[in-house]
C-alpha cells in the first residue's frame, strides 16, 4: 500500500463533487490501477457542504474507512474555505487545488498552508465550455495536470466514453466537458 494516493473533494451539493470522484475513479480504473471512489453521505441538500473521496493504488485496496490524511485536496467552491477546514489532515507535503481567480500565493497565505497550492478559475471555464457553472470536470483537468499520474489524452478518451453513456442525447454536454478539461489542463497555475 506504499503507493496509496488519497484525494478529498470539497464541494457544495449540486456542484458535482460526487460525480467527479466517480468519474475520476472510472478513468483511473481504466488505466489499470486499483481505485475507490465514494461520497460522504450527509444531509444531501443543494448548496450544503459535501465531501467525496478517491483512493488510487497499484495494489488492491482493502481499506474501507474514511480518508483522514489525503495527499491532495480539491475545493470546488472557494467560499467553503471560510467555514470548512479544507486543509484538515493535509500534511506540509500535500497539495491543495482551489477553484479561484486568486493567485495561489494569496490562498496559501490566507490558509497558512505550507504545502503546494494551485488555482484555476474553473467556474469561468465551465460557464464558457459547458454553458453553466459546473466546476467539477475542469478541476479534474487541474488534478491531472498537477499530479501527472495520468495521460491527458487517455483521460479525455475515457471521459468521452463515460459521458456518452449518460449524455447520449446531449452531445454538447460531452464536448463542453472535454473542452473544459483541456482548458483546465492548460490554465491551472
Amino acid at each position, binding site marked *: *500500500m506504499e503507493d496509496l494516493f488519497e484525494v478529498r473533494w470539497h464541494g457544495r451539493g449540486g456542484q458535482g463533487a460526487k460525480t467527479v*470522484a*466517480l468519474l475520476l*475513479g*472510472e478513468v483511473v*480504473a*481504466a488505466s489499470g490501477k*486499483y*481505485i*475507490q*471512489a*465514494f*461520497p460522504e*453521505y450527509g444531509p444531501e441538500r443543494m448548496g450544503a457542504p459535501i465531501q467525496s473521496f478517491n483512493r488510487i493504488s497499484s495494489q*488492491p*485496496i*482493502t*481499506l*474501507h*474507512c*474514511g480518508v*483522514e490524511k489525503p495527499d491532495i485536496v480539491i475545493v470546488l467552491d472557494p467560499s467553503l474555505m471560510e467555514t470548512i477546514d479544507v486543509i484538515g489532515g493535509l500534511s506540509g507535503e500535500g497539495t491543495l487545488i482551489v477553484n479561484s481567480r486568486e493567485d495561489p500565493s494569496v490562498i496559501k497565505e490566507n490558509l497558512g498552508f505550507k504545502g503546494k497550492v494551485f488555482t484555476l478559475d474553473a467556474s469561468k471555464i465551465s460557464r464558457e465550455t459547458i454553458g453553466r457553472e459546473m466546476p467539477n470536470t475542469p478541476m479534474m483537468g487541474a488534478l491531472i495536470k498537477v499530479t501527472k499520474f495520468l495521460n491527458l489524452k487517455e483521460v479525455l478518451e475515457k471521459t468521452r466514453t463515460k459521458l456518452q453513456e449518460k449524455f447520449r442525447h446531449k452531445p454538447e454536454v460531452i464536448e463542453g466537458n472535454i473542452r473544459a478539461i483541456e482548458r483546465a489542463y492548460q490554465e491551472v497555475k
Partner: protein
Amino acid sequence: MSEKRMAKTANEAIAEAMRQINPDVVAAYPITPATEIVQIFSQFVADGKVTTEFVPVESEHSAMSAVVGASLAGARAMTATSSQGLALMWEILYIASALRLPVIMPMVNRALSAPINIHCDHSDSMGARDSGWIQLYSESVQETYDNVIQAVRIAERSLLPVMVTTDGFILSHCLELLTPLLDKEAKDFIGEYRPKNFLLDTEHPFTVGALDLQDYYFEHKRQEAEAMIESKKIILKIGEEFERKFGRRYEFFEDYKVIDSEVATVVIGSAAGTTKVVVDQLREEKIKAGLLKLRVFRPFPAEELKELLKNVKVIAVLDRADSLNAVSGPLFSEIRNALYDLEERPKIVNYIYGLGGRDIGLKEIHSIYEDLEEINRTGKIKSLLTYLGVRE
C-alpha cells in the same frame, strides 16, 4: 477466462449479478441504501435485458410475500432490501425458510430506527439470525457479487433462503474494481432451476401452509434445523467449484494470518479489509497478529472456527450490532460459545463498533490490537465489553 475488470459499486454489482441470474420473478420495494439495486434492475427489465416478471409492490412485507408465492409456484425468485425493509419482512422471513423456499435476497446492512439513521451497521441482518436464512457477509464489492452468484446455487441445493449482505454506503455506494463472470460463465455456473415440488405442477398437487399443531410442528422444525446443518457441506462444495472455475476462494471464513497468531480479531464485513492493513503493519513490527473474517454467519461454522482459533492467545470479536442483552454483541456470544469446549481456551473480549455508520479506521483497530497485546502480557482482562470510540 473472465471479462475484464470494471468499476462498480456494490449496488451496481448486485444488479449486474441479478441481470445474469435473470430470475423468473423479482418483487421489491425501494429503501436507502438498497434502492439502486432494484432501480438498475428495473431498467434491465424495461430494456428487455432480462425476462423477469418485475412486481413493484407497496411494501417489503408484500415483497417477501410475493416472492414466497412466486417461489412456491416454481419460480426462481429474488428481492432486495435493507434495515426497516427487512424488519417489515419479518414474519414472512420465517415462512420462506420453513417452507424451504430457495429465495435469494441481497440485503444492504443499515442501522435500525430509532433514532433514524441510513448508515451501516449489522443490526438488521443480525436480528434475523434465527429466522432460518443462510447469511453470507461480504468484505468488498467483488465479494458481494461473488456471494450473490453463489447464493443461487446454495439456496437451490439446500432448499433454504439465502441472504447476501453488503455494508450500506461503505460498499453499496463505493466504486471499486469488479471482475464479473462472463454472462455465459454465470449462466452455466448457476444452471437452470428445476424445483422438485411446485404448485403449478398440477399433476402433483400438494398442500402448503397447513395447520401443524402439537403432533408434527416439532418434527418439521427439526427437519429445518437439519437442512441448516446439511447446508454447510453445500456451501463449501459450491465455494470449491467457484474457486476451481473462477480462481477466487470462498469458505466459511478467511484465515488472514490467524494460523500462527497470538492476538487475533474476528470481523464481519467491510471493516475486515481495513483490519487487514493493520495486521500487515503489525506483522512488520514482528507482532503475531491475525484476522478471522467471517463470511458465513448462518449456518454458524462453530467446529471450524474452534479449530482455527484454538491456538490463539487473545481474541477480540468485533460486533457491528449490539444485542442489548446486558452481556455482549451477537457475534461474540457465538464465538465464545464455540470455544467453550476447548480444554485451554483463548482469552476473549468483545468490541461493539460502528453503529449507525460510525467510521472505524486504522487508529481504532490498532487500539484493539494494543489492548489484546496487553491482555496477552498481563493475563488480565480489564473490560470484557468495550463500546469502541463512543462518547460516554
